[in-house]
């Protein structure tokens, strides 16, 4: 394995897409694993932030500021989503669907179907590229830095009293109420937190890919959940820190799988989804096969002992 081939691997899509979708999956992790809500609003929120960040950049706003505004607006959407459940007593799943459906129209109107970056406009990635003059490395540096920053922030935040009470409210709402935790405010906080992460990934995605259509979020919740499950199977979720790392690992493995499939020479890409399903199943059952083999080995080792007794 030489450095050239490692660089070539980094030049493929898996590491950068993996990091973008890790941020996305961390957002899904907050709503799905911590709050125990399957939040479908992400399907529209992801392209929403992507479209906004491109729109702002095209209009001469600094790329970092563009991402910040997109993230704040995304957070507000998350707040509305939370309010639908808390104040209007709408089932969280339906609240997510409402946001998903309703946000589609602004996406279409703002992007008029498809928004692309104006030529010679700086993004957060090309900005760093002018300094270090290697686009792949600048993408990886920025995304890696942001992802690690978010994981550190989440590890710290969900260890504070506020964060712990949020986790408690998601795990067992009645128990949390009995402890005097305001579960409504915790729910709102969690939904905003999740929406911020989803918007951040969407905004970064937009600036990285340079064109976003309202359909870009189609199937994104499935990708997010797959990444979470994939990571959990590989690393487990015995501790919170491990859970965070397992999401990051799942994100990169997921895109690695896709990258490997589409690089098979002469591969008919109509089979992509089938092969993706098979490969994901394969990765997920590896630990089970391992367990099965070690169990059999143990049984074999024990039998002679019994006979000697």
């Amino acid at each position: 394995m030489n450095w050239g081939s490692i660089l070539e691997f980094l030049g493929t899509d898996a590491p950068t897409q993996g990091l973008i979708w890790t941020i996305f999956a961390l957002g899904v992790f907050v709503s799905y694993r911590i709050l125990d809500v399957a939040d479908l609003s992400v399907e529209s929120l992801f392209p929403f932030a992507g479209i906004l960040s491109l729109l702002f950049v095209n209009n001469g706003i600094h790329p970092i500021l563009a991402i910040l505004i997109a993230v704040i607006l995304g957070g507000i959407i998350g707040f509305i989503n939370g309010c639908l459940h808390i104040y209007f007593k709408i089932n969280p799943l339906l609240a997510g669907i409402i946001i998903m459906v309703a946000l589609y129209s602004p996406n279409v109107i703002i992007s008029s179907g498809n928004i692309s970056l104006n030529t010679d406009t700086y993004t957060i990635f090309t900005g760093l590229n002018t300094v270090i003059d290697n686009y792949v490395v600048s993408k990886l540096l920025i995304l890696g830095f942001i992802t690690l920053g978010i994981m550190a922030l989440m590890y710290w935040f969900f260890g504070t009293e506020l964060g712990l009470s949020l986790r408690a409210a998601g795990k067992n709402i009645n128990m949390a109420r009995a402890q005097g935790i305001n579960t409504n405010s915790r729910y709102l906080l969690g939904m905003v937190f999740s929406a911020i992460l989803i918007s951040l990934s969407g905004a970064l995605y937009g600036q990285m890919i340079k064109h976003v259509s309202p359909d870009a979020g189609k199937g994104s919740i499935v990708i997010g959940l797959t990444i979470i499950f994939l990571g959990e199977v590989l690393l487990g979720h015995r501790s919170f820190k491990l859970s965070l790392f397992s999401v990051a690992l799942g994100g990169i493995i997921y895109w690695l799988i896709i990258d490997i499939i589409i690089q098979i020479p002469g591969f008919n890409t109509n089979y992509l989804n089938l092969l993706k399903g098979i490969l994901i199943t394969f990765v997920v059952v590896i630990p089970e096969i391992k367990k099965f083999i070690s169990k059999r080995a143990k049984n074999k080792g024990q039998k002679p002992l019994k006979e000697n007794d």
Partner: protein
Amino acid sequence: MKKLNLLLLLGVATTSAMGLSSCGSDLTEIGILQFGTFDALENCKDGFISALEDAGFVDGENVKFTIQNPEGDSSTQDSMAINLATNSDMVFGISTGSSQALKNAVEDQGKDTPVLFSAVTDPVAAGLVTSFTEHGNVVGTSDAGPTDKNIELFTEFEGIDKIGIIYNSAESNSIIQKNEAVEACEELGLTLVDGGISSQTEIDSTIQNFVAQGVQGLFIPTDNTIALAIEGMKDTLEENKILTVCADALVTAEGGSLGYSVDYENLGETTGKMAAKILNGVDISTIPCSKSESFPLSLREDFFTNTGIAIPESIQAILESQEA
């Protein structure tokens, strides 16, 4: 133990990814990215390949085609674009999104690989080219259809003054055509009812709404969502005697009434000829982008026999002259 296995898995995955990406050959690699499996896009691809074959570039002999199709999934499309840009000597995007993804991937890798595009309605608005003649390493064909000619078709029939338009409002191609239709209707004094939808499930209720509003005609632009659903709309349209003009010949044949359309195979061939020129060493910047020029009129006779609407003589004349 668990960690060791994981490292092993990662190692195997990375090395196989690297191994696959680094295997090359002497043939000129042409990467084709096709957004989805629709007839129009398929025809475009076939036209491209056959034009190259006619020019002496045959798959497996001196060129190698790698065709990838993300089936409408945007993020997979980006992965494929990066993969194709890495491994190809020339790339060809079919549809707006695919072409944008390829152009960006080539740019990001700091290469000047020629990027060809087709089935893009407005390449300037999509940011692919600055103009049809100033375009750097990107060149191709636009599938802008004859929207004004199609709207004029309604005036050939008697008693049509209110028409509907149905399209997926997330497809930029359709939005461009809708705006053209609005202008054409204003000029001809027709009332246009807007029926933008976001998914196939909304088609039925939109058609019902058109019927309730008393539209006598329907215009369908080249729209991938409607193209997939046209067969299901056929009966309702015939029952209510709604004259359906489609900008896509295949949609007309499956459930429309008539319409001028873009010949996608011809469009693909034009793009293929551009590719052959580039492969023969012609400077890409001297080749201008082009639009589709010939728009054949197609007509589904079943619609007219089932509804009893008479085909005007003017249209019959056009059809006869086309056959000649």
